[in-house]
C-alpha cells in the first residue's frame, strides 16, 4: 500500500466535492436521483461484502440475511415502540453481527464452493422464516415504515436529496472501514488466509477467529445498510430484502464486475450495474419481463470470461498497454 500522495488527496477531495454537489444537477423529486441513491447504497453493500469475500476469499451468497435483519429490526422497533431508526440501526447491526457469528461458527472451516453453498442456504433460511413468521414480520405481504414528519432524528425525509447525502456518507464510511481493515493487522491476516489457509495457520494465525471477526464486521455493516434501505423505500417484503437474486447475488456481482478485493471496485460496479439495470428496466419492461435480468446475467458471464477481476483489472491492463506503446 503506497501512502496517499498530495496529487491523490487533491483528486479525492475534488471527487468528494463533486459527489456532494451532484444532486443539485438533478430534479430533487425525480427518478434519476433515486437511482443514484440506490447505486450508493448497493456500492456500500458490495463494499461490506468485499471485506469477507475480497480480502479473505470467503465468497458469501447469503448477505441478504444480514441486510434483511437490519431492515426488519429497525422497522419493527419503529412500528411497535416508536424507537428512532438510528437506534434501530444499532440494534440491527448487533443482530446482524450475531447472525454472522451464528453462521460463521459452523461454516468457518468450509472453503470455496462449500462456503458459498452454506451461506446460500442460510440466506434462504432467513427468507423462509420471514415469510412464515407472519405474526412478527407481516409475512409475504410485506411491511410499511410508518410515516413521520421529515427529520434527521427519525431518518425520514420528504425530499430525496438528504437520502442521497446519507447514502454517500454510508458508502464513504464503509469504504473507509474496508481500507482501514485492509491496511491493518487483520487485513494482512485475511490476505494470508486468502493466499493459503494452511500456511496461514502454520505461521500462527488463528484463522477461525480472523474469519469470524471479518464476517461479524461485514454482517453488522450490511445490517446498517438494510435500515437505510427500509427508511428509503418505506415498504419492503421478505422476498426483496432476503432475496438471493435481489440482494445476495446482486451485491456479489457488483463487487465482481467492478473488481473484487479492491476499494474502488464495488463503487465502479455499483455505478455501472444499478443504472444499467434501471435503464434496461425502463426500455424493456414494457415489451418483455425478464429481458433486463437477462442482460444482467449475460453481463456477469461476459465479465467472468473476459476478466474475472473486473473493471479495475481491465483498466490496469489498458494502462499497461498504453505505457508500453509510449516507450516504444
Amino acid at each position, binding site marked *: 500500500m503506497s501512502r496517499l500522495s498530495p496529487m491523490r488527496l487533491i483528486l479525492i477531495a475534488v471527487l468528494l466535492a463533486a459527489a456532494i454537489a451532484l444532486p443539485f444537477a438533478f430534479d430533487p423529486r425525480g427518478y434519476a436521483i433515486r437511482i443514484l441513491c440506490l447505486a450508493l447504497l448497493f456500492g456500500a453493500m458490495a463494499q461490506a461484502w468485499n471485506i469477507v*469475500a475480497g480480502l479473505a*476469499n470467503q*465468497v458469501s*451468497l447469503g448477505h441478504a440475511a444480514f441486510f434483511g435483519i437490519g431492515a426488519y429490526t429497525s422497522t419493527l422497533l419503529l412500528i411497535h415502540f416508536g424507537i428512532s431508526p438510528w437506534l434501530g440501526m444499532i440494534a440491527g447491526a448487533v443482530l446482524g453481527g450475531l447472525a454472522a457469528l451464528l*453462521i460463521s461458527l*459452523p*461454516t468457518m*472451516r*468450509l472453503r*470455496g*464452493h*462449500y462456503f*458459498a*453453498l*452454506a451461506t*446460500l*442456504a*442460510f440466506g*434462504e*433460511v432467513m427468507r*423462509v*422464516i420471514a*415469510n*412464515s413468521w407472519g405474526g412478527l414480520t407481516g409475512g409475504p405481504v410485506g411491511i410499511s415504515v410508518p410515516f413521520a414528519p421529515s427529520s434527521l432524528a427519525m431518518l425520514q425525509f420528504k425530499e430525496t436529496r438528504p437520502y442521497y447525502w446519507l447514502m454517500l456518507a454510508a458508502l464513504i464510511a464503509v469504504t473507509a472501514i474496508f481500507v482501514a481493515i485492509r491496511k491493518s493487522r487483520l487485513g494482512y491476516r485475511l490476505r494470508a488466509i486468502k493466499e493459503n489457509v494452511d500456511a496461514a495457520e502454520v505461521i500462527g494465525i488463528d484463522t477461525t477467529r480472523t474469519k469470524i471477526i471479518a464476517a461479524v464486521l461485514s454482517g453488522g455493516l450490511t445490517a446498517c445498510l438494510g435500515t437505510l434501505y427500509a427508511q428509503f423505500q418505506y415498504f419492503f417484503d421478505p422476498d426483496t430484502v432476503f432475496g438471493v*437474486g435481489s440482494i445476495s*447475488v446482486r451485491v*456479489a*456481482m457488483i463487487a*465482481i464486475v467492478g473488481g*473484487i478485493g479492491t476499494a474502488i471496485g464495488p463503487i465502479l460496479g455499483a455505478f455501472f450495474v444499478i443504472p444499467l439495470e434501471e435503464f434496461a428496466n425502463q426500455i424493456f419492461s414494457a415489451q*418483455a*419481463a*425478464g*429481458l433486463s*435480468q*437477462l442482460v*444482467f*446475467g*449475460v*453481463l*456477469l*458471464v461476459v465479465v*467472468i*470470461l473476459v476478466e*474475472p477481476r473486473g473493471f479495475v483489472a481491465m483498466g490496469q491492463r489498458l494502462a499497461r498497454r498504453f505505457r508500453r506503446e509510449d516507450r516504444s
Partner: protein
Amino acid sequence: MAVVQAILDGLMIGGVYAVISIGLTLVFGVMGIVNFAQAEFLMLGMFVAYYAWAWLGLDPLLAAPLAFAVVFVLGAALQHLLIRRVLKAPEVAQIFLTVGLLIVMENAALLMFGSGFKSVSTPYQTASLQLGPLFVSVPYLAAFLMSVASGLVLWLFMKLSWFGKAMRATAQDPMAAKLLGINSDRMHMLAFALGVGLTAFGGAVILPYLTASPTVGGQFVVLMFTVVVLGGLGSVAGAVVGGFAVGIIQSLSGLAFPIQLQNLVLFVVFIGVLAFRPKGLLGAAR
C-alpha cells in the same frame, strides 16, 4: 400408519431427487465444478416434455428421453463455450459463471415460455394403487420407476462402457488419465452433457404431478445441493442415498410442519451436514 405412508411417499419422490442430483454430483466429481445452474436444466427438461405433450401429444414419460437428448446437446455446447474456460480459474469465477448462467437461463425461459404455469393432463394423473392400508399414487410411481431405470442405465454405462471407465478415470486422477491417452476435454464435455441431460430427464418425469414454470428451478436448487452434500459431493452412490434421505425427510416433516417450513427443515439439515460432515454422511468414499 401415517408414518409408513409418509416414508413410502418419501421413497417415491426420493428416487426422482436421486436422479436429478446425480447430474450435479457427476459434474462436480469429474470437473470439480459446482453447477449453481443445474436446477435450470430440470426446468428446461420440464418445458421440453411440456411442448412434446402440447404439440405432439407425447406423454411426458415418453418425452423424457427427448428432454435428455435436447439438454444433452445444449450441455455439451455450454461446456465447450463457457464452462471449459473457467476450469482453471479461481473458485470465485467458477461460482459466478454458473450463477450468471442461472440468471440467463431463468430469464430466457421467462421470455420464451411466458411467466405462466403450465401443466399436462394424463389419464393416470389422479390414479392410485392400493397396497393393503397404503396408497401409491400412479404418477409418483411412474416417475420413480423411470428414475430407477435411468439410474441403472447410467450405472451400466459408467461400469461397462469405455467412455464410462474413461470418465471415472478422469475423475480419479486427471493426470494419469491424460497419460493413458484419454482426452480430458472430451470427458468433461461428456460429463457435463450427461449430468445436465439426466437432470432434464428427471424434470420430464415429474411433469405429470408438478407444473412447469420458468422459476421452478428455484424450488430445487437447495434441495439438490442438500442431496449431493448429504451423500458427499462427487459421489454418485452418495447422491442415491441422499436422494432417498431427502425425500423421506421432506415427507416426514410434512406430517409435522406446514409446507413452507418443510424447506426450512431441509435447509437446516443442509447447513448441519456441511458444518459437521462436509464430505457427506458416507465419508470421503468416492
